């Protein structure tokens, strides 16, 4: 199993570093699959940073990012103390129905759902919010 773990302040100034690190990790799979998963993971991370910016003193807030390649499955997990709320299907339905020229139409959620095989979120009893995305990876595409 390959694994990358990052724990960083929920500050967008670290986004470039996060993108560089996760993209480097994803070099173990084929370019096209890496690009698609990276886009989805980036969207999950910016949602998390945005939630922290909206709801808390984000400079003091840590977000946790885990990226794993386990057999044929790529798994991305992002945790923060502020995200969450709402039903995924409701968000997706709204984003599909709304006019494409709407500025705020949950495009990020639509893109994540399109780019990965499994996408879910949950809030734990301690208030921690977690998003998990999974994608099957063609082992033929894995760089060994």
């Amino acid at each position, binding site marked *: 199993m390959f694994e990358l773990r990052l724990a960083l302040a929920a500050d*967008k*100034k670290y*986004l*470039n570093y996060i*993108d560089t690190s996760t993209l480097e990790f994803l070099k173990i799979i084929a370019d096209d699959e890496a*690009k*698609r998963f990276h*886009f989805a993971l*980036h*969207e999950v991370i*910016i949602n998390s*940073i*945005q939630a922290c910016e909206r709801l808390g003193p984000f400079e003091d807030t840590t977000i946790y990012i885990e990226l794993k390649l386990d057999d044929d499955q790529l798994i991305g997990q992002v945790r923060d103390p502020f995200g969450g709320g709402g039903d995924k299907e409701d968000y997706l339905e709204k984003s599909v129905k709304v*006019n*494409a*020229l*709407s*500025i*705020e*139409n949950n*495009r*990020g959620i*639509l*893109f994540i759902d*399109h780019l990965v095989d499994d996408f879910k979120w949950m809030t734990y009893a301690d208030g921690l919010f977690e998003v998990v995305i999974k994608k099957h990876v063609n082992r033929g595409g894995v760089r060994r």
Partner: protein
Amino acid sequence: MKDVMPVISKVENNIQTLQLNGRMTYDFIDQYEKHIKKGIVNADGYIIDLRAIEQIDSTGLGLLVTLAKYFMNNKGKMVIVNTDALIHELFVVSKLDQIFKISDSIVESIKIIEDKDEVFWTGI
């Protein structure tokens, strides 16, 4: 984005080309928007060239929507130049392909803008 000029503008035959560079992502999106808005001139048509973009996300695509609304409200024509398959796929997923005119070159974009029969902003 310290070393990259995010927007390079060129105006020719009353068509402004805005070549976007670097990261069009959440961490730079405010800076990006300021650069673009500052650089827009009065023209008949606008070409938004995405080919030099290093990375784009939903906030970058949202900025394209903001630009589209601005040009539409000012009766301007807008064509996006894109050759990236994933970005095109995301245009389709979000139905932006029904609103944006998309081409794969500047030459083709100019043809679209100068075509008197081409109707803009029809998918709204």
